[in-house]
């Protein structure tokens, strides 16, 4: 129904830029800036697009991690109901923070983050996204510090006025202290699913991480064993000594392959699993937003009813406060309707999002599984090949 822009989400730009609308972003070139405690990593963010709202076909800006956080927070605020793509974790153990591997993992995750936004039909239209992708560094810094200040919400928020004042009143009046919740069995099922899913995924991810470590350990032990075999070979001498030396050399070569595979495993398997966990956490945040919206809707509806009753009372008594009360009632009614609309939007969006989420995850995990299997097969083949190459020599030794 609405204009849906089809986009290629990743770095490729289509052949004919003018016909197909596209927005593609890449996060590259991590560079360490600053000194000591203040040190941080900056990234080059390159945008290629033919969207009319954008300043031009290509733009390059420098961004840091907290800028990405700003973007995420803004989107989360504005697009309630949509599962905002997750960001990689904030901080790591201090000494790990600048390791090459960590930086690369983070860069990859940030790249995925922006591209998911860029390929989401609603999120890609965000003004904040445009700011993020185009604003100069000073502006970005100003915005970033502004957000982390006390001014988190806009003052003219209709909800604010009534939420703060009325919620407590209505709770007391309605005689209930506990928060109001939807009684939607399908939604309950979804919530349960999401919470359970996080647990399962976290466990799988834990084992995936351990598997990476095991690869490294096996690699190290092969290296050590290889060295020892070589030394033993030097001592033995003759044909047997040569056999040991050859074995040692192969062992060391395999060690290298294992370290490589460990890295691959980390990037193409463990990281997607972690990403999956983060995505589920993002859904949980959206669930929270939906609960808030529902509560607000209920409270405003209740408050409005009370106001209506009050108004009728005043009208009967022909109070001179009728006008004022009528005005208040109208405002409240508007607010209530808006709250209802917001809630319903969230529900609708979530329904779409969950379908999109499941499909996206099937696709992404499918890729991850494929890479995982490929990597393991590749590794096993290397192992088989390396050891197999020794056999003719060993046979020759024994027949000699």
């Amino acid at each position: 129904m609405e204009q849906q822009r089809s986009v290629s989400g990743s770095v490729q730009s289509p052949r004919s830029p003018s016909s197909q609308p596209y927005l593609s972003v890449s996060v590259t070139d991590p560079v360490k800036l600053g000194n000591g405690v203040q040190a941080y990593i900056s990234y080059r963010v390159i945008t290629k697009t033919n969207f009319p709202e954008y300043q031009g076909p290509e733009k390059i800006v420098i961004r840091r991690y907290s800028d990405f956080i700003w973007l995420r927070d803004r989107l989360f605020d504005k697009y309630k109901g949509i599962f905002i793509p997750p960001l990689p974790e904030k901080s790591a153990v201090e000494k790990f923070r600048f390791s090459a591997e960590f930086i690369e993992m983070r860069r990859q995750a940030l790249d995925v983050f922006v591209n998911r936004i860029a390929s989401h039909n609603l999120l890609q239209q965000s003004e904040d996204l445009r700011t993020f992708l185009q604003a100069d560094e000073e502006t970005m810094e100003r915005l970033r510090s502004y957000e982390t200040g006390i001014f988190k919400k806009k003052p003219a928020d209709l909800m604010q006025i009534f939420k703060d004042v009325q919620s407590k009143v209505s709770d007391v009046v309605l005689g209930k202290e506990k928060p109001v919740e939807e009684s939607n069995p399908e939604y309950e099922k979804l919530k349960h699913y999401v919470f359970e899913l996080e647990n399962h995924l976290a466990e799988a991810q834990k084992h995936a991480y351990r598997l990476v470590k095991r690869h490294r350990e096996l690699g190290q032990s092969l290296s050590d064993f290889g060295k020892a075999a070589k030394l033993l070979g030097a001592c033995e001498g003759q044909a047997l000594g040569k056999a040991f030396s050859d074995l040692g050399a192969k062992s060391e070569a395999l060690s290298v392959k294992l370290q490589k595979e460990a890295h691959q495993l980390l990037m193409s398997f463990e990281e997607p699993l972690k990403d999956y966990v983060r995505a589920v956490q993002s859904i949980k945040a959206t669930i929270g937003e939906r609960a808030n919206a529902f509560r607000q809707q209920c409270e405003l509806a209740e408050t409005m009813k009370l106001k209506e009753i009050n108004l009728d009372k005043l009208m009967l008594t022909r109070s001179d406060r009728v006008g004022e009360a009528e005005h208040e009632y109208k405002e409240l009614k508007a607010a209530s309707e808006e709250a209802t609309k917001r809630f319903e939007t969230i529900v609708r969006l979530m329904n779409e999002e969950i379908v999109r989420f499941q499909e996206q995850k099937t696709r992404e995990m499918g890729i991850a599984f494929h890479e995982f299997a490929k990597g393991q097969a590749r590794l096993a083949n290397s192992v088989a090949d390396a050891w197999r190459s020794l056999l003719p020599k060993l046979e020759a030794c024994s027949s000699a």
Partner: protein
Amino acid sequence: MMGSENPGFEEAHLFASREEMENLVLDDPLSTHHPNNNNSYSSFRSANSSISESTHHPLSPPMLSTSADSDPLLSPPVCRNPNASDNNSYIEPPSYADVIFSPFDENSANEINRIDSTSQDTDSSFALSRSSSSSSDYIKITVSNPKKEQETTNSLVPGGNTYYTYLITTRTNIPDFGSSEFSVRRRFRDVVALSDRLAEAYRGYFIPPRPDKNVVESQVMQKQDFVEQRRVALEKYLKRLAGHPVIRLSDELKVFLQVEGRLPLSVSTDVASRMLDGTAVAPHEVVQPAKGGRDLLRLFKELRQSVANDWGGSKPPVVEEDKLFMEKKEWIHDLEQQISNASQQAETLVKAQQDMGETMGELGLAFIKLTKFENEEAMYNSQRVRAADMKCVATAAVKASRFYRELNAQTVKHLDTLHEYLGLMLAVHGAFTDRSSALLTVQTLLSELSTLHSRAEKLEAASSKIFGGDKSRIHKIEELKETIRITEDAKNVAIREYERIKENNKCELERLDKERRVDFLNMLKGFVVNQVGYAEKISDVWAKVAEETSGYAKDS
């Protein structure tokens, strides 16, 4: 492509409980889940026994042991079937074709469950491959059936001491034994006696070292574990003895294996010390090394001699002239270092392989749970597709895990050769010590002789100055001459003994070289063949998954 069919995998909804989840039905029924057994890697010895325990994991192949059923942690398989056939095809396979490495067949399951018995067979097969001439001879020894018994003689402790005896069963076709199958009950004390007697009788030979007494540990360990460990160690020791071409035919071993009843303890030899004290003694008795107690005087003399050797300005009368031997000795020392190093690294490698297998298995299990979960809660088809993909990966991970464990069980067996040779190095040290102490005896006797000779000369010189002779001095000279004669004889015996030991050393070194080459080569071959075989299997497993998920492949 995405919905992989795995015939053995039951529908997720049949798993009602966590227990059932742990008892996965993949390709075969599995035993109950045990907690991680990955911490006992202090030595191969423990690795050998713990491997058979830790493979009883949900992901291991079915255990086809009969009586001592599923849980080896509760009842270690004590009753070894001595008639077990040599099923160690892994050591010397003709090729690493699939046929050899079908992991779920009975052979291999038994392989894994009875690692110890296979290592016995390893020894015998090595022996077979080594000895060219006597390849049809065999001595098969098994140690079983530990029994607790009471000390029958009076003891200070009321209630008496208890000790364990072990049933030692021998099967052989060597005619010297007089029978082809026989058993005897022995306690550890008898083994110590055997070992001591062999050490006396076979100086210069590389005599396999006997198991430790382990007194302290025995207080700490569970009795049952200790007994089992000792049983295993005894069996290995006796097998090694039976594998030594000279010792296997020794009287000492024969008596030990066949003759019921208390083994006579080693006789403490003090004859040499008596001789060196000046008492008449049979020369052949001089050749035993000096021991404590009554050998004190001899010990002092030899000590003085060795000090003179080390610090004295003059060279001892007989020197270790065999340059070749000195070089060999140094080389042996270096070899020992390298073997020790390699053995250590092999242990680390084994642990790493074990861990890999375990973690892979745990990953598989986690994905199985996820699959079940997604299927149960599926609201969209994409979930079912994903669940199917996950199941595919999970099954592969569990299979791969199993392969890693099996691979490791074999690796342990092969690389254990390194550890075995370390033990043998101890025997080599013993033999070299025999040689140096024999040399010391010769040197001591030579010094003694020269002392006696100079004393006799002095006496004769003094006596010749007195006209008609000095009756008492002449008498002394006579006695001295007698002593000198005896000492000469003893010296000759000592030299002969020394030469004999040198010859034994030489032969044994040659044997060590030959056998070591064969053993190490077999070890390398076995290790490599194993790695290849299992790597191929693991690769196949994952290649299938890669194939089935190829639809997701990133378009580059």
